[in-house]
C-alpha cells in the first residue's frame, strides 16, 4: 500500500532501532556503574549472561516464559549485589587498573563456568511473541510483534531508570552517594547500600537486555553472547560520555541505526570497524563525550 514503509531506508532505520535499543541499554548499565563506583565493569556482559542461564534453567521444569524472566531478574539482583560486596568493595581506592583486571577475571570465570555447566552450544530461548515479520501489501515490513515488544521493553527500562533517578527519594540518594559519598554519609545516606543497589540495578538492566537478545537473534544464548555487544555498548557510552546516561542511550540507539546501514550498504564485517573508527574520531574531537560538558579536574 505504502511503499515508503517498506522502503530500504525505513527498513534499515527500524531494524537498526532494534539493535540500537540493546546497545543503548548496555551503555546505560555501564554508565550507571561508572558514575556510582568509578569502575568500568568489564563483566557487565557476563554477569547478566550467567543470570539468564540460571533463570531459564527453569524452562526444563515447565515454567512459563514470564516465570523464567522473573527468575532471571532475581538471579541478576543477587549476582550484582554479591559481586559488589565481595569483589568490588575491597578495591575502592586502589589503583584504577585493579578493578578492571578483577572484572576481566570475573568475565573469564563466568564464561568458562557457564560453558562448563550449560555447554557453549547456542540455546534458543522461546519468545513470548511471534518474530514473523508483518507484511505490508505483500512486502515484508521491518517490524514483528517480537521486535515491537523488544523496543517497547527497552524504552520502558530507560524511562523507568530515568524516573527512578530524577523523581524518587531513592534516586536522589543514589545520585548523592555517587557524586559526594562523604557528604551523603554525613546526611544519613547509607552509601555502601546505595552502591550495592546501583550494581543490582545495572545488572538487572543487563539481564533484560540479554533475555531480549537471546530470544531475538538467530544465535541464541551462548556464554559469549555479550562479548561483541559489550564492545558496542562501551563505544556508545564512551562517545556519549561515560558520565551521561542520556548520552549513552541516544548514542547507543544512533549507533544501532548506523550499524544497520553499514550492514546493508557495505557488509557485516565492516560494522565493528566503522564503530571503532567512530570512537577514535569522536574521542579525538570531543574527548569527554558528546553529551557531557568538559570539566576541569581539581587537584
Amino acid at each position: 500500500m505504502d511503499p515508503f514503509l517498506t522502503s530500504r531506508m525505513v527498513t534499515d532505520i527500524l531494524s537498526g532501532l532494534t539493535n540500537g535499543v540493546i546497545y543503548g541499554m548496555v551503555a546505560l548499565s555501564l554508565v550507571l556503574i561508572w558514575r556510582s563506583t568509578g569502575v568500568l565493569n568489564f563483566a557487565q556482559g557476563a554477569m547478566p549472561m550467567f543470570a539468564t542461564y540460571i533463570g531459564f534453567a527453569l524452562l526444563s521444569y515447565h515454567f512459563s516464559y514470564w516465570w523464567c524472566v522473573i527468575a532471571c531478574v532475581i538471579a541478576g539482583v543477587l549476582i550484582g549485589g554479591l559481586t559488589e560486596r565481595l569483589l568490588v568493595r575491597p578495591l575502592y581506592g586502589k589503583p584504577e587498573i585493579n578493578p578492571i583486571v578483577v572484572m576481566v577475571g570475573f568475565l573469564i570465570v563466568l564464561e568458562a563456568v557457564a560453558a562448563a555447566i550449560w555447554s557453549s552450544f547456542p540455546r534458543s530461548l522461546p519468545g513470548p511473541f511471534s518474530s514473523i515479520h508483518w507484511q505490508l501489501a505483500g512486502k515484508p515490513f521491518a517490524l514483528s510483534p517480537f521486535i515491537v515488544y523488544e523496543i517497547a521493553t527497552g524504552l520502558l527500562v530507560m524511562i523507568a531508570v530515568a524516573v527512578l533517578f530524577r523523581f524518587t527519594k531513592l534516586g536522589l540518594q543514589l545520585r548523592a552517594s555517587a557524586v559526594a559519598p562523604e557528604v551523603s554519609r554525613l546526611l544519613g545516606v547509607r552509601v555502601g547500600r546505595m552502591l550495592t543497589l546501583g550494581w543490582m540495578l545495572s545488572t538487572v538492566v543487563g539481564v533484560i537486555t540479554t533475555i531480549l537478545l537471546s530470544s531475538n537473534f538467530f544465535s541464541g544464548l551462548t556464554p559469549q553472547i555479550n562479548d561483541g555487544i559489550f564492545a558496542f555498548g562501551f563505544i556508545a557510552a564512551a562517545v556519549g560520555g561515560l558520565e551521561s546516561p542520556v548520552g549513552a542511550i541516544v548514542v547507543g540507539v544512533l549507533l544501532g541505526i548506523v550499524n544497520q546501514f553499514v550492514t546493508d550498504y557495505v557488509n557485516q564485517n565492516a560494522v565493528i570497524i566503522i564503530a571503532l573508527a567512530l570512537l577514535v574520531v569522536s574521542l579525538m574531537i570531543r574527548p569527554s563525550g558528546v553529551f557531557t560538558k568538559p570539566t576541569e579536574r581539581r587537584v
Partner: protein
Amino acid sequence: MKLSESRLRVPIAIVVAIVATVISLVSAASVREGVAISLAFDLAIACATALSLPDLKSRHPVVSRAAFTLLGLDVAIFITFFLNSSTNFNLATGAAMSIVLLGLSFLTGASGQISLGNGAFMGVGAFTMAIWANHHATTPIVLTLLIAVACGALVGLLLGLPATRLRGPYLAGMTLAFAVAFTFILSSFSSWTGGDSGLQLPTAAVAPRWLDGFFHAGTSPLTTTTLYITDVAIIVAGVAFFFMANLFASRTGRAMRLIRDNDVAAELVGISLPRARVVAFIVSSAYAALGGAMLTLIDNSVSPPTYSFALSVTILSLIVIGGIGTISGAVIGGIIYAFSTNVISWITNQTGLNPQGNFASQLNGIIFGGLLILTMLFAPLGIAGAARQLWHRVRSRTSG
C-alpha cells in the same frame, strides 16, 4: 678482608674457567661439542664474575644488565640442548609470549594504564610478518621482523593517540573494542590475510648445517630445526629483555613511573602526560607485534582464530599472575604460558575428568580467571612481587 675477597674473585674465576674448559674438552664426544660446552661454561663464568663485582651495578648499569642478559641466555640455550622437541617448542612459544608480556608490563608499570587488546597487536605483527614474507620472499627475516614491529607501533599510535589523552578506563575499553574487532578486520581483508585458513610462510626456517654437528648421528632434522628456532626465539626475547631493562631504568622510564604514582606531580615537574602515555602504549604495541611475528616464525604459519579476544585475555592473566609492572613478571608469565597446556592436561588426567567433556575444556578459563581475581585481590604484584617481598623479609631477618 672484604676488599681482598673481591680482588681475588677475578683470578679465581679464571682458574675455574680453565678447569671447566679442560674438563669439557676432554670428556666431550667430539671436538666441536667440547668447544661449544666449554664456551658456554666460560661465558657463564665470565658473566657471573662480572655481576659479582661490587660496584658494577652502580657504575656501569648497562654493562651489568648486558652481563645479566648474557648469563640468562647462555644458561637457557644450554638447557635447550638437553630437552626434547615438544618441550623446546613450548619454550619457544613461551619466549615469544614473554616479549608480549614485557610490553604490557611496561605499559602498566610505566603509565598505570592497561591494554586488553595486546592479542590483536600480536596479530598485527603476526600477519604483517606472513603477508610481507609472502609478497617479498627475498627480504631478510630480521628486516621483516622490524617491519612487523613498525606496523604494530603504527596501529598503536593510531589507537593510543585519542585514548591516552583521557583519564579513566578509555584505553582499556578501546583496546577491548579493537580486540573484538580484529577478527572482523582480518576477514574484511581476506584477500591479504588468507581468510579463514590463514597464511603459510613461503620458506620454513631451517636450522643451519653446522648445528647438526652438536647432535649424535641419526637425530631428525625436525629436532634440529625446533632447537634452532627455540634458541632464536630465546635470543630475540633476551634482546627485547635487555632493551626493556634499560628503558625501565632510563630517564623516560623513571618519568613514567612518576606518572603512574602521581600524575599531578609528574605534570608539575614538566613531564607531558599525554605524550608519555602514548609512548608507553606504542612501546607495548610494538613489543606485542614482535612477539606475534616471532610466533608466526615459530609456527611457520598464522591462522586468524589464534588472535581472538581470548588471547588478549590470556595475555592479561599471564602478566598479572607473573607480576604486572615488573620485568621478571613477564619472564615468569612466559614460562607459565609455555607449560600451561601440559599442566592443565595433567590436572585433567589426575582428577579423572573426561578430557572431551565440558568441564575439562573450560578448565583453562576457570583456573586462569580465578587466579587473575585472587592475584589482584591478595597479591597485586603477582609472583614477582610476592617473591620480592619474601626475599626482603628473609634478608631483614638474617641481617638483624
